[in-house]
């Protein structure tokens, strides 16, 4: 039976390095994907994910299982991501949101799809690529806190109470935040939404 996150962390606290390797294996992918969608840069996302794991490791001696491990982990990740986004905001403003997206920043980083199998028609593939680009840009346009809320809610499937703790707000404030974010996405993605809602 797999040990719980809390048990693994307590084992790390007791000096078991192997338990830390298991936590790394368990959470590296969700963390990197969350951070990548926050900062839109793979290298930066991996650097931030490394920093998250290092902070967890450094805090092992003082670890007390007072909350879910994922709440603690994603709170560290969210704070790092929000700081990083704010630090680089002025640089990103220089890049037009309508500018063509580079392969490095977007498609090149994501899991390669079996295009030949799923999209025998190249035109269909290009249409789907355009859809994904539109979705990515809509997420990127969200204010940072709304973006973090949507990513934690949609991709990490954390419950409202946990996301509220990560973002340090009340559960009702989080629901309101998510509602506004989905409203913005609904407007930004209107052409796609109309197709999907039919």
């Amino acid at each position, binding site marked *: 039976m797999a040990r719980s996150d809390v048990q693994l962390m307590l084992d790390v606290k007791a000096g078991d390095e192997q338990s830390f390797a298991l936590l790394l294996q368990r959470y590296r992918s969700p963390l990197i994907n969350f951070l990548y969608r926050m900062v839109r840069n793979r290298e930066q996302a991996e650097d931030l994910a490394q920093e998250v794991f290092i902070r967890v490791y*450094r805090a092992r001696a003082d670890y007390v299982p007072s909350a879910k491990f994922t709440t603690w982990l994603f709170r560290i990740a969210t704070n790092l991501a929000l700081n990083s986004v704010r630090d680089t905001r002025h640089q990103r403003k220089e890049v037009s949101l309508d500018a063509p997206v580079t392969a490095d920043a977007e498609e090149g980083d994501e*899991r390669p799809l079996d295009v030949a199998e799923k999209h025998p028609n190249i035109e269909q593939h290009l249409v789907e690529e355009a859809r994904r680009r539109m979705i990515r840009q809509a997420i990127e346009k969200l204010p940072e806190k709304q973006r973090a809320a949507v990513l934690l809610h949609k991709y990490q499937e954390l419950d409202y109470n946990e996301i509220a703790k990560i973002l340090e707000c009340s559960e009702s404030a989080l629901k309101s935040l998510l509602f506004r974010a989905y409203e913005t996405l*609904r407007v930004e993605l209107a052409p796609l*939404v109309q197709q999907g*809602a039919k």
Partner: protein
Amino acid sequence: MSCDRMESRILPYVDGRLKASEQREVEEHLSECPACRVRVNEFRAVSGLLDELPQIEPSGAFDARVRARIAAEPVKQSWWAWLAPSPRVAFAASLLLFATVWVGSRPNTPEGRRTRVADRGPIIIDSSDLPVLENFDVLANFEPLTDLPQSVQGDEEQPDSNQQM
């Protein structure tokens, strides 16, 4: 239920995270409110669109970089670590303790004490001096000596008389 109250429930409803009683309330409202029905459908569509984004895989070197950084971390000692003696300090403390116990375990008899005093060097007290020492106050008072006859010339040449005083 009003449309305003739907704001906090519409997304949990789409997610299927509402309690049964709340879900019934939402469904009652939706049956009467076409605008909220449209919004629910559109939120569902947005949620479906978000599912279309693929995941990225961590680079092959990610784990190795994390491990390298952890290996470079300084060893953190707790506040109590200084209480834990090093092997050399523990050895020295053991030796000191052993020596203390050995010295303390030696016999504490009068013979033993005399032996230890003798070790420091002989203190010889002549038993004939004891009465003189006991009458030291008398010797210190020179008044009776004034009754003695004046010394005659040549006393200085008779060292024996001085010695008798």
